[in-house]
């Protein structure tokens, strides 16, 4: 199955600039959705569809960094290419720390912008399946009982059934039962896969928990 064409979202409160960038991106055949208000963008973007965001840093009400924070809270992987009027170093550092794809200074050269967008779209293509998997694992983890989670953590830590039973103050038979249930819920057949999944989901990442 071929993935749908990615959407390039553009958010800038200056209508002239917004229109010009939209036009530039359309000239190279990109699918563009332009918004003059960050709120309108947040209301209407599709977090499951591929794409990237070209975002002006200085916006009235909700500025670029605020929008980035909201997207982060919504667990969106949409890569962001920031535009700024003047090279604001503090803001760019903060934006990059939070995973901005690029940071361009206005006026923007078309090649730089197009390159940044292509890179962002490529990054989106990569991060989107991983994100999907992360979400899938998270969904499965959510189905586990508390006891099964405890057992999972200990399995990931490399304990044997007997050791687990002793640690949790129960019988080895009970542990086997939990283990069977959680393997089924997580959709794996062998322990190696279970450990891989759990690590990807960050379970038992820090020893001692």
């Amino acid at each position, binding site marked *: 199955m071929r993935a749908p064409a990615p959407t390039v979202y553009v958010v800038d409160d200056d209508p*002239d*600039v917004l229109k010009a960038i939209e*036009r*530039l991106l359309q*000239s190279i055949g990109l699918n563009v959705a332009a918004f003059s208000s960050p709120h309108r963008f947040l209301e209407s973007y599709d977090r499951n569809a591929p794409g990237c965001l070209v975002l002006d840093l*200085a*916006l*009235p009400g909700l500025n670029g960094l605020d929008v980035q924070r909201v997207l982060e809270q919504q667990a969106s992987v949409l890569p962001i290419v920031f535009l700024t009027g003047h090279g604001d170093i503090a803001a760019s550092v903060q934006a990059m720390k939070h995973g901005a794809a690029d940071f361009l200074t206005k006026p923007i*050269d078309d090649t730089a912008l197009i390159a940044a967008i292509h890179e962002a779209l490529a990054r989106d293509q990569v991060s989107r399946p991983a994100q999907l998997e992360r979400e899938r694992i998270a969904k499965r983890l959510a189905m586990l009982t508390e006891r099964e989670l405890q057992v999972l953590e200990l399995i990931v830590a490399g304990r044997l059934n007997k050791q687990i039973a002793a640690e949790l103050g129960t019988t080895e038979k009970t542990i086997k039962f939990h283990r069977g249930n959680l393997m089924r819920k997580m959709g794996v057949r062998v322990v190696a896969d279970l450990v891989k999944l759990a690590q990807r989901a960050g379970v038992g990442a820090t020893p001692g928990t």
Partner: protein
Amino acid sequence: MNWVETAWTMMIAASLMLGVVHLFVWYKQRSRYANLMFFVLAVSAAAYGAYELARMQAETPADLATNARWSHVPLAVVVISIVGFVRLYFNAGRLWLACTVIGVRLVALALNFLTGVNVNFLEITALDHLQLWGGAVVAGPIGIPNPWAIVPQLSNLLLVVFIIDASVTLWRRGGTVARRRAALVGGSLSLCITTAGSVAALVVTGVVHAPTVLMPGFFLVVLAMGYELVWDLASAAQLAAQLGASEHRFRAVVEAVPSAILLVNDKGLITLANAQAETVFGYQRAELVAKPVETLIPEHLRTPHAGLRSGYAGDPRARAMGADRELFARRKDGAEIPVEVALSPMPTRDGLFVLVSVVDVTERRNVERATARQRDDLAHLSRVAMLGELSGSLAHELNQPLTAILSNAQAAQRFLAQSPPRFDKLVEILADIVKSDHRAGAVIQRLRSLLKKEESQRHALDINEVVEESMRLMRSDFLSRQVLVSTDLAETLPMVSGDRNQLQQVLLNLVINGCDAMDGQAVDRRLLVRTRATVNGNVEVSVVDRGAGIPVANLERIFEPFVTTKATGLGLGLAICRSIVAAHGGRLWATNNPECGATLHCELPAKRD
């Protein structure tokens, strides 16, 4: 010659003398008809006196009768002139009574010639020789009384009534002079006429054997009237002396006044000029007098001035001339000087004179101009400093259209590179490029104008436009400071007269201050700029912030120079803003809002056409 002749001759001569004196008075002052009347009275009294003297020396009854008949002619003139004198001199007395007195007297005069030997006797039968004190012997009439003698008596009676009535009227008017006049002239006249009438009646009826002597009575009347008239002349002379002194004082005051003074008559000619006028206008006084006042007015204003002058004559009030505009005068050397002029009307018998006071304000204008220049310089300096503060924002305002232009141009290049080239897109792209270019051009224009150092110029301004333009200039600043700005602009506002750059400076300053006031706070960084028409027809711009507000003690102090609450800045901004607003005839003040923050108000007078 016995004493009677001597006395009568003297009285006649004295009456004539007094009469002639007042004829001269009348001749010099034609409006003094009372003096003319007095002359007629005195001369006719003298004439009657001459008849009376001859009558007392009559040798036959026929002589006496003829004399008595003709003596009624001057007698009638005496009566008529008394009436005239009283009317003119008292400015009182009933006209109908006056006419009746004269009418009856004329009837008596007619009867005098038509009946008997005269109006008093049908016939004079004998002479009554009367021995007087001191051995003098005079003749008196014995005869049959004329029944018509009642007519002259009636005339006398009416005359007395007329005089008393006029005297009472005069007395009631009050005033020492009028009352004395009423008592002295009115009293002596009434007394003499009553006495004379009674004597005549007694003699005619034969009750008393005596000559009908009226002359002493007339003489007393003449003396009393003469006294009054001379007193008038004396007081006129006194008045003239006072007037002279007063004019002397007037001239002394006019000379001492530090401004130029001109007295201009109703024909627009200068009649008086003081020493200061010589200094101000550079003319000698003699050169100014009798010249039209327009001589001192710049040539191009002379014709309108003549019109204004006649307009002033229609509504003469003491006032400053041309209070709403600058006035200029022309010196002898042709130089035009700025002046202030005050006018006071002086109504005189010779028409409306105007006292013109002119002050040369060249020096004051120079000082004012220098002050204004300093204020403009200071305003410019602080404007440049303020634009420095805003430079980031201003650069951004230029950057936005440049960004749009670049992206549009590059989009066009890419559309053209396609095959087939997308020419259809070019029309709107180029239109947008032009639009953005204009936008950038406008920012640069405004900046250049704000940075330029030029003398303040007044134009008709829509304050809403100034607000909107300022908001555009500061847009990026609001964004980077994360201040939400809203405007509430009145739809119909009168225009104001002002310097665009300076008023924009004031507004930018107030807005920057409002933003500064909210710098430290995490939330609610909102600023409102509002315009409205005030109740008195002016325009008010308010900048409302939601900061901490201003301590009450500082509400006025913040407008003093070098008073600042900020870590940076000289504290000149608001002081300069206030001086700019004041120079525009407006005011700038601060208030605290009910809930939070402060409002800076700027009221500007509406432009009057």
